[in-house]
């Protein structure tokens, strides 16, 4: 279980998170939605321990990752898989090399087992036989799939997805979402996803949390969010333009 308590973060004078609270149930897919630049990725970077808050806590099964350092933080991170917005694939390695990297370096598996698991992971994301290509030689959608394969190959308990479908066409968006759903059913990880793919994410989320002005404006199952009377939520999920002042 992940519990975010009164998280506050400012960059200079810009207040990004203003006392945010969020609970993520074990084994669920929780999607954080909200406007661009609203602090979704900042929240995610706090969850994975890449940013320290000004105040508040992030508890992962009781351990406060905002207070942990060094080996203690690494122990928590060993349970994580992260799919970054741009994939963050190592461009000096092939796709297979990228997927093999955490197996070799994090789990220290033997070469034969690494090869077997890499092949299986690439097949799982529909990229069998593409392992020898470099990230620069494959399409954006393929890069996202390699990133998903790399994040999941170590079978982590918790997986974070930072806008995994940004910049993809609608068919690829659905393909990636269904891939995540299928892998989630198979591997039963806890997923926290940041996205603004409306309405596609309602098909895969167990819980949707709407981030607005540094706080969670509303949280609940997709059906509740879709039927929400909250004007902020309604405006966002319907994609209504902002009204000009005084109009």
């Amino acid at each position: 279980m992940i519990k975010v308590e009164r998280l506050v973060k400012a960059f200079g004078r810009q207040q990004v998170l203003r006392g945010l609270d969020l609970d993520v149930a074990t084994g669920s897919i929780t999607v954080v939605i909200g406007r661009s630049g609203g602090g979704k990725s900042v929240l995610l970077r706090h969850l994975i321990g890449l940013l320290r808050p000004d105040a508040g806590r992030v508890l992962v099964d009781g351990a406060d990752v905002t207070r942990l350092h060094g080996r203690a933080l690494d122990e928590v991170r060993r349970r994580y898989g992260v799919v970054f917005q741009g994939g963050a694939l190592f461009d000096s390695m092939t796709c297979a090399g990228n997927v093999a990297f955490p197996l070799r370096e994090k789990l220290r598996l033997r070469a034969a087992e690494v090869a077997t698991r890499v092949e299986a992971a690439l097949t799982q994301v529909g990229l069998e036989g593409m392992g020898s290509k470099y990230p620069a030689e494959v399409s954006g959608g393929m890069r996202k799939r390699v990133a998903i394969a790399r994040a999941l190959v170590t079978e982590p308990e918790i997986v974070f997805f930072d806008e995994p479908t940004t910049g993809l066409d609608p068919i690829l968006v659905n393909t990636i979402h269904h891939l995540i759903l299928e892998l989630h059913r198979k591997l039963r990880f806890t997923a926290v996803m940041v996205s603004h793919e409306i309405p596609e994410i309602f098909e895969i989320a167990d819980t949707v949390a709407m981030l607005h002005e540094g706080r969670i404006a509303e949280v609940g199952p997709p059906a509740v969010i879709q039927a929400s009377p909250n004007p902020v939520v309604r405006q966002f999920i319907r994609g209504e333009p902002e009204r000009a002042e005084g109009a």
Partner: protein
Amino acid sequence: MTERPLPLALRPLDAIGRWAIAGVEALGRFGTFLGQALGTILTPPFKFWAFVDRIHYIGYRSLLIILLTGGFTGMVLGLQVYFTLVRFGSEAYLGPAVALSLIRELGPVLAALMVTGRAGSALTAEIGIMRITEQIDALTVMALSPIRYLVAPSILAGLVTFPLMTALFDAVGIFGGYLVGVELLGLSQGTYFGEMQSFVDLSDIMTGFWKSLSFGVIVTWVCTYKGFTVGHGAEGVAKATTDAVVLSSVLILVWDYFMGTVLP
């Protein structure tokens, strides 16, 4: 509670104070970064293949520029020093003059400057791009130390390659001086090399060695640090690369002076 605004007369002092604190903090981060890297070098696991890759990256790829600049530096030295020595009737000392200039001073400094321009800038750009494309964050969240994978192998490779590049620069430079002094200006081969053996001793070679070793640490430290702390986007990478080359070059010259005053 809101802070009371400072009186106008105190504001310049406030600005100087803030600037000084920011400077000291930056220096602290810079020093801590080296401390972390050295600590990582001394603790297992040792990333052997990353180290070999960095030797290739810093050393092998700088070979051509070292051979070219070393050769021409020796030739220019040969030409200029010969015409100066001729005025005093001491052209027989051309060999030692070229060799001592190269081994003690020009070899370590110019080789370090050349490697900075060729490999140091590339190192900053590579790590900077890894930072802005979240590749370094990817390493961190895998519970793997980016310092161990990117910085420690580079510093170790700097320790190995800089003395080797300097030795090569010196050897090619001495041969360049030979080409001009002996083949072009007619000095005897025996005089050029014989006098060199009489005047150049181990302490001169060790001076050049210690200098090149320390330049290896300085350049890889500065260049990896600038890559790690890069700003945003392509502009940030461009600025970090320029800063790395400028700071490395200045530090090489400043440190060379201090080493020159300390070493025999």
